[in-house]
């Protein structure tokens, strides 16, 4: 059957959960295609459509092993994402994808994985985290170092509490709060504090650009080699398939050749992200 790449498939929202309130609100949505659908890989994204408003590129945060829904965690940012935040259970949206490359998790079998994320940056990591957890016997130690500005800004609160019984979880917030018992400081500082061993380990870091930069620096400092560090790049996107010419860094179209890069690959590319 011929598929028109620009024509979204319709999907129904089956759950909406508010992760973070306030002006920088984050909500998690689960969707089911009305018919058909697609299978994705860890780290891939999809273009979500709100008809009349436009499209936004969003990481698929559910694991490919979960078949009955796709999950997206979305920060309210502007026109389209605000409209997504207004959706209710039963609302219809358009989805096209999946786009981009993926984390090479098959080749990481037998290795430890360190996840380092900040704010909404947990979304692209989440599908890898869920997948490796479900296949725990294939991987070594799993560790999460995650931080947010304040404790209410932490996403996936219940899931994180639950995770603590399954893997090492280190949380942090930027400035001290009376009730806070864990680390206070930036994610990069927490990495330096916890000093996870680079031995047979892959580190994935996602979050705002400045956080990615400082985390990569911290990871290098404690001995991670460039090809042991992975991250995702976000550039403004429209087509998602390497045609509209918008998202490039050097010869790479992030939508097609990215968004997942090892630091070894990324540092070869011009600084245009």
């Amino acid at each position: 059957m011929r598929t028109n790449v620009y024509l979204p498939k319709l999907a129904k929202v089956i759950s909406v959960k508010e992760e973070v309130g306030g002006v920088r609100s984050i909500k998690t949505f689960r969707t089911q295609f009305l018919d058909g659908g697609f299978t994705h890989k860890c780290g891939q994204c999809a273009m979500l459509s709100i008809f009349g408003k436009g499209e936004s590129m969003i990481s698929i945060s559910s694991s490919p092993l979960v078949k009955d829904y796709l999950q997206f965690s979305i920060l309210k940012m502007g026109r389209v994402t605000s409209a997504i935040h207004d959706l209710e259970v039963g609302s219809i949206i358009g989805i096209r994808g999946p786009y981009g490359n993926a984390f090479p998790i098959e080749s990481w079998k037998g290795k430890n994985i360190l996840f380092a994320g900040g704010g909404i940056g947990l979304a692209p990591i989440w599908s890898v985290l869920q997948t490796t957890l479900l296949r725990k016997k294939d991987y070594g130690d799993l560790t999460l170092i995650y931080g947010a500005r304040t404790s209410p800004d932490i996403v996936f609160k219940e899931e994180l509490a639950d995770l603590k019984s399954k893997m090492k979880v280190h949380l942090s917030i930027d400035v001290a709060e009376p009730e806070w018992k864990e680390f206070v400081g930036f994610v990069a500082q927490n990495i330096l504090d916890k000093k996870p061993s680079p031995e047979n380990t892959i580190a994935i870091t996602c979050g705002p650009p400045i956080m990615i930069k400082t985390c990569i620096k911290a990871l290098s400092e404690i001995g991670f080699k460039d090809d042991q560090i992975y991250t995702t790049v976000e550039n403004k996107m429209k087509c998602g398939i390497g045609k509209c010419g918008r998202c490039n860094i050097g010869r790479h179209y992030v939508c097609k050749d990215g968004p997942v890069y090892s630091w070894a690959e990324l540092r070869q590319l011009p600084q245009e992200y």
Partner: protein
Amino acid sequence: MVKHEDVRAEAKKLLESGKVKYIIAYELGADGWKANPVFIKKPEDVDKIIWGPTCFHNLIRFVVDEKRRKVQQKNPDTRPVGVMVKGCDSRAIVILLQEKFIERKDVHIIGVSCEKTGVIDERKLANKLKGRKAKNVEFGPDENFVVTTEEGTVDLPASEIMADRCLECIAHVPVITDVLFGEKTKRTVPHPFGSVEKIETLSSEDRWKFWSEQLEKCVRCYACRSVCPMCYCDECVADTITFAVSPDTTAEEKAQKIKWLDKSPVISENIFYHMVRAIHLAGRCIDCGECERACPVNIPLRMLNKKLEKEAKLLFGYDVGFDSEKPALISCFRDEDPEDFIR
């Protein structure tokens, strides 16, 4: 006649003394006969500077750039920039001063008089030459230009190849300068609003037809806006997102931003864009004609602005861009204003 050497000597003096940061001037382009803007930073480069009938550009556009750059810099060099101006360009400075976008000390104005002519219109010249390629164009001794092609040299009267804006120019000698080259010639302009006279005689249906056909052609490259020294807004309704976005702008604010016009180059959107631009230039357009020159599909944009200039003149006796001390047309009113709402 203005001599290159004199302008160059002045530029050299300014740069050597460190009085200006750099000088915005004209140089000869790669095609060997047309001028291009150039930024002279070192005294040894002043010999690049030229003056001639292809110095179309209104270099004040780059004074606007300089101001934008300065706002971004932590410790900006506060010396003025030197800038070469024709009469029309000098009126753009008056507007920027009037609107307090720049201060007088930001610019060192090197004026050149257009004397008996002005700049040529490339399309008129091309039509005149019928396929022959121009190699050089110079000011003639009278109201004429001397054009050289591979077939030799011809004398062409200004009335045939001069830009319309120059034919209707009311300020061929710069109105504000620090130094002036060339003679303060006298000139009569029989039809200062000549380019709108014809269309004014048409019925409104015919005018609508005319503009619909013209604006249908627009590809919305925004060269007309980009080349204009008066279109200096940071935020423009024509852009998809506003540049005033900061990390503190909330999602709500961005989501509610009104989308004034679609990116599609269709007649409704094109007309809207051009009407907004024309209205925002009322009493501000100094008729340098750059929008019309830059337009790749040759839309007679000057006509829109000229009409509004005429309205300002007839209704309010307002001459655009002559006196920086006077309030701007759209920011003042008079007690004797015929409209009630403003009083």
